[in-house]
């Protein structure tokens, strides 16, 4: 089960703008200046510490609402078998940018610098998305050119229940990258993501924007991906 700790992510203004920033804010000198300042701070102080872990698990059979994997491990949730009916194996992956950025964001809020804190939070969200995309690319690369890999599914989106979070962390071996789950079922550090990918022939693919648009929260989510970029 590999650990990846050599990924560099550097969200640019464009990625950040697509996650819940309107033209009105970006066109204001102070907001745009603050965003540049925040990005410089992220780089200079190493607030992004990306790490990922993943594990590939052979599918032994389809059961009601899920899969039986090698080692008699069962994974159930949502419409999993309907989404990946032909999966030969499932890859569980977990990635995080570490706790430094979110701690700094909380600090800014406590100090009364709300806008700076919020911009930092958006940078963190954009960084996690970039990291996840790169982890998927690495997994595909590791599995070899002949292996079909699906787009990633994450708990809480795309029909996968949040209760799957703990299973995915275990299957990915996420404790090796310092990622844990709280008693309330949340990832800690918060700026983290778990994913499940199917491998085999005819695996379904979709773009991040398509996945975002299908989410029940698409209309009001502050982090939704928008097509138009200022």
């Amino acid at each position, binding site marked *: 089960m590999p650990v990846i700790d050599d990924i560099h992510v550097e969200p640019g203004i464009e990625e950040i703008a697509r996650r819940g920033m309107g033209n009105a804010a970006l066109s204001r000198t102070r907001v745009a200046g603050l965003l540049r300042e925040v990005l410089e701070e992220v780089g200079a102080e190493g607030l992004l510490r990306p790490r990922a872990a993943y594990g590939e698990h052979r599918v032994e059979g389809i059961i009601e609402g899920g899969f039986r994997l090698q080692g008699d491990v069962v994974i159930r949730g949502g419409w999993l078998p309907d989404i990946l009916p032909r999966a030969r194996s499932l890859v569980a992956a977990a990635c995080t940018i570490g706790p430094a950025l979110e701690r700094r964001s909380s600090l800014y809020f406590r100090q009364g610098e709300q806008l700076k804190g*919020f911009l930092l939070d958006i940078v963190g969200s954009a960084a996690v998305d970039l990291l996840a995309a790169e982890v998927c690319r690495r997994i595909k690369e590791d599995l070899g050119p002949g292996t079909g890999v699906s787009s990633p599914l994450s708990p809480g989106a795309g029909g996968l229940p949040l209760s799957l979070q703990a299973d995915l962390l275990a299957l990915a071996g996420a404790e090796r990258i310092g990622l844990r789950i709280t008693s309330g079922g949340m990832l800690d550090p918060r700026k983290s993501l778990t994913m499940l990918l199917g491998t085999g022939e005819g695996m379904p693919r979709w773009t991040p924007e398509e996945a975002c648009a299908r989410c029940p929260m698409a209309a009001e989510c502050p982090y939704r991906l928008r097509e138009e970029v200022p």
Partner: protein
Amino acid sequence: MGEDLVKALADLEEETVMEIVRRRLEADEDPMAIMEDARKAMEIVGQRFSDGEYFIPELVFSGEILKEVTALIKPRLSASAEQERLGEVVLGTVAGDIHDIGKDIVGFMLDVSGFKVHDLGVDVPPQRFVEKLEETGSPILGLSGFLTLAFDSMKQTVQAVEEAGLRDRVKIMIGGGQVSEEVRAYTGADAFGKDAVEGVALARKFMGLA
């Protein structure tokens, strides 16, 4: 002049806002009239946010401008006006949930909108909310929870408030990524808000100001 301030603040023209406020203060205008114009502007900001024209950064930016306006005006306000708050709100993210950003934004917008906010942080056990409500006498409790897993904690907190005999005098609003009328009914809260603008509107309504 009043319309200028309303438009400038609603359009997030920070420098223009501060210039207008300084000019109006130099002209010995009633500071409360300036604050009233700022409130009207924030209503427009809230509407633009609800319409999807503004996003959270714009909302927070408007709050920061309002904070600057308030700081300029504060020395001119009478002691009683300065101390006057619309109401008090006990706020926190419920037990088991460590998300703070949404709660922090709601707290900030409540603060700049004139409420005194007692922010208990994240992962707050029900009893801690009860203790703070008893200590402060706050008539409003705001519970935040981002994920569906937080709904049981919200329900337990509402029950704890009931068991402490405070339910009759405390209005409870919930907020977070996935709240809905079904969630409100499940938790036993009085109302739910989908964002900071709705949170402020609910608090004003609870205080009989809407």
